[in-house]
């Protein structure tokens, strides 16, 4: 079964450093998403991306965040200057064209720890 692949599985970074979280969506999917889950809390939407531009973003997705699809396969989330409160699990997801009745396919997540 096709998978969404996220790398790395765990990243530790110093506060103030830039991090890039990488995702390889399913090849024929056209819609891409990032979600965040702070430990012990619910999963929250960050951003959706379609046709090489952001479709929707949440209040969490401020100027320190950016997304990019640098080539035909990768989808990245960059956090420019990390804060302690950015420590969380970050999930990438992708969806094929058409209705949302089947939901998304989520990746297994990247655990980001900011120290």
């Amino acid at each position, binding site marked *: 079964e096709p998978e969404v692949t996220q790398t790395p599985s765990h990243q530790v970074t110093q506060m103030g450093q830039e991090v890039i979280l990488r995702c390889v969506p399913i090849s024929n999917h056209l819609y891409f*998403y990032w979600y965040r*889950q702070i430990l012990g809390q*619910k*999963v929250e939407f960050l951003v*959706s991306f379609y046709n090489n531009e952001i*479709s929707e973003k949440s209040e969490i997705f401020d100027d320190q965040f950016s997304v990019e699809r640098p080539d035909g396969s990768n989808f990245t989330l960059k956090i420019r200057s990390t804060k302690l409160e950015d420590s969380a*699990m970050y*999930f990438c997801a992708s969806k094929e064209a058409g209705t949302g*009745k*089947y939901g998304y396919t989520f990746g297994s997540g990247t655990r980001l720890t900011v120290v």
Partner: protein
Amino acid sequence: AQTVTQSQPEMSVQEAETVTLSCTYDTSESDYYLFWYKQPPSRQMILVIRQEAYKQQNATENRFSVNFQKAAKSFSLKISDSQLGDAAMYFCAYLTGTYKYIFGTGTRLKVLA
């Protein structure tokens, strides 16, 4: 704006017994999709079951079924013949018209041997 509420932070069930996890939501849309996701300790998000709002028939997937009450905006998950591997965090989710998930706060399910 849509909201999703899971009022049970934690539930316990004996192995082989049945448990129901509650979820309510609020929306002004008439057509939408609802989902239950399982998150084991690995923290991966695993789709358990989905329901299309315009379908009156409740969805079932093997031991998992839902009780969808559209008028009451209720979407509960029933797990029959509970197994140790069912122990996880369960999230109810609403898919918006822009294909964004709104998740509930989750219910931690413990399965007792």
